[in-house]
């Protein structure tokens, strides 16, 4: 008995097992795996063009220079696209939030409280499961005359049905007593929504807001689909354009491909990429805080 107690005490002290070392090692390796490629992009952006093309850049710049960034200051289109993306993020996120909130609230009511809840939710779920596809959507956007405008980037995806369901479930977890008290005081549903439910759902709203921001900022495909004038491109679409600067769809043999992949004005592209990632990095701490909790609450709830 006594021997066992002593043994347990020893185990409780910080003893470095070989398994501990292995665990730390593997985790550090995985972390480096994520970090190094990104460091490489940053390093490339600060390197000389020759070094970059020759592939000499590791995680530290070779031939340190601000050339790439200086060139960017001259690139009008880059900044135009940057602004377009910024505006899109602001407008798009506001619209998303408004629509998600106004839809999630009635849907969160039981059928007794909101007689048509059942029908509406069936529509919403249907929209989530089926869609007409890329081609019909393009035609609708076209018919509405939205092609080439920033609205084509914002309006089609304005209702995020996944987020509606998320917020709806969150609203359902708000204690009924709060609502009943407000009703007794004579509040109408709109007032109840604004004064009770919204403050109570701040974490969930923050999560949805951040997802929306990231989604809008990173989306490049809407730009490719709906916008034909380069001057109207959002940032990611513009970067996509210059990264695949050479028309890869004409590449038919391996030598040409090798050529294209190496010629790229690599430092310039790297710099543009770094700049396009900075806004995300700025909100990243907020992202971390909210989505880890928001995601977990939504999924691992009992």
């Amino acid at each position, binding site marked *: 008995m006594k021997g066992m107690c002593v043994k347990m005490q020893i185990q409780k002290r910080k003893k470095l097992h070989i398994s501990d070392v292995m665990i730390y090692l593997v985790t550090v390796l995985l972390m480096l795996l994520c970090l190094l490629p990104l460091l490489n992009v940053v390093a490339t952006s600060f390197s000389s063009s020759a070094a970059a093309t020759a592939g000499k850049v590791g995680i530290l710049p070779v031939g340190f220079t601000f050339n790439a960034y200086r060139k960017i200051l001259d690139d009008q289109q880059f900044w135009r696209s940057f602004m377009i993306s910024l505006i899109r993020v602001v407008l798009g996120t506001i619209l998303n939030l408004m629509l998600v909130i106004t839809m999630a609230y009635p849907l969160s009511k039981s059928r007794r409280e909101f007689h048509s809840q059942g029908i509406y939710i069936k529509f919403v779920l249907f929209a989530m499961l089926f869609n007409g596809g890329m081609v019909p959507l393009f035609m609708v956007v076209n018919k509405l005359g939205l092609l080439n405008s920033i609205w084509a980037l914002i309006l089609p995806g304005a209702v995020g049905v996944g987020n509606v369901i998320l917020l709806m479930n969150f609203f359902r977890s708000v204690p009924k007593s709060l609502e009943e008290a407000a009703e007794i005081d004579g509040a109408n549903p709109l007032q109840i929504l604004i004064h009770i439910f919204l403050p109570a759902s701040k974490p969930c709203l923050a999560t949805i807001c951040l997802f929306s921001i990231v989604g809008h900022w*990173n989306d490049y495909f809407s730009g490719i689909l709906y916008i034909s004038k380069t001057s109207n491109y959002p940032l990611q679409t513009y*970067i996509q354009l210059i990264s695949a600067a050479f028309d890869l769809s004409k590449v038919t043999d391996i030598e040409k491909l090798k050529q294209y992949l190496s010629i790229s004005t690599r430092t310039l592209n790297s710099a543009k990429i770094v700049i396009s990632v900075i806004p995300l990095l700025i909100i990243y701490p907020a992202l971390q805080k909210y989505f880890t909790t928001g995601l977990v609450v939504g999924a691992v709830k009992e």
Partner: protein
Amino acid sequence: MRKPKKQLYYHAMMLPGMIFLAIFSFVPMFGIIMAFQNYIPAKGILNSKWVNFDNFKFIFTIPDSKQIFFNTITIALGKMILGVIVPVCFALLLNEIRRKAFKKTIQTIVYLPHFLSWVVLASVVQYIFSYEGPINSLLSAFKINPIMFMGSNTWFRPIMILTETWKEFGYGSIIYLAALTGIDPGLYEAAAIDGANRFKRLLHITLPGILPIILIMTTMSLPNILSAGFDQIFNLYNPLVYESGDIIDTYVYRVGMLQRQYSLATAVGLIKSVVGAVLIAAANKLVTTFSDRRMF
């Protein structure tokens, strides 16, 4: 005077969103008709010739489509499998780490790739696997000839799967980490007292503890089997690897939008939608039988 009924408020709230859904989700659904026609833009939907199931017959007979479906499912399966194994293992590793600061640092770094778009990451991937990139440099250190990874049909699919896993394993581990914290520590202590070593504890407590959530996550990813990651592949593929890398969505884009074969593309999209919907219904059924959790 009677106050406006509550119902009116609720309907009014639903209205803006429903209008958007109507225009951008429901109206396009009517475009599915194009799948059954030989749609010519100049003629419009009303005047294009009806060909019933010809488009679908065409899809199922041309050799291209078999290849495309095969590519899509292979890549999607690979991503699904690794997409569960790697995050789970990472969560298990992370769970063993006691130093809070270290743990937080790792998490911050490892979540990052998820938030970057494939436009940005494509440059990174192309560089790494390029002729003068690190991987080939490593190979030449072992006296192996450099391989043109991004142009090779043997390597393209594995690279797609591996890089996607790289991008998502950090973010994907969050759910499993959360589930791990939900396991009763008392169980571990009891097992330690009974003499179970680390490995045994892992096998008999940890894994059974997170098995439900693993099953749920796997089931929920089933409906995506026909979406093999358009963004990634679109940014990384080229004609040399169409044979192994072309997936349903990239095919629909090229053939539908660029080559304007609207009917064909719509038909393919319809197949995808229907299969996806069936799978979601099946997944929902499975999830509700596994636990008392519901997907919707």
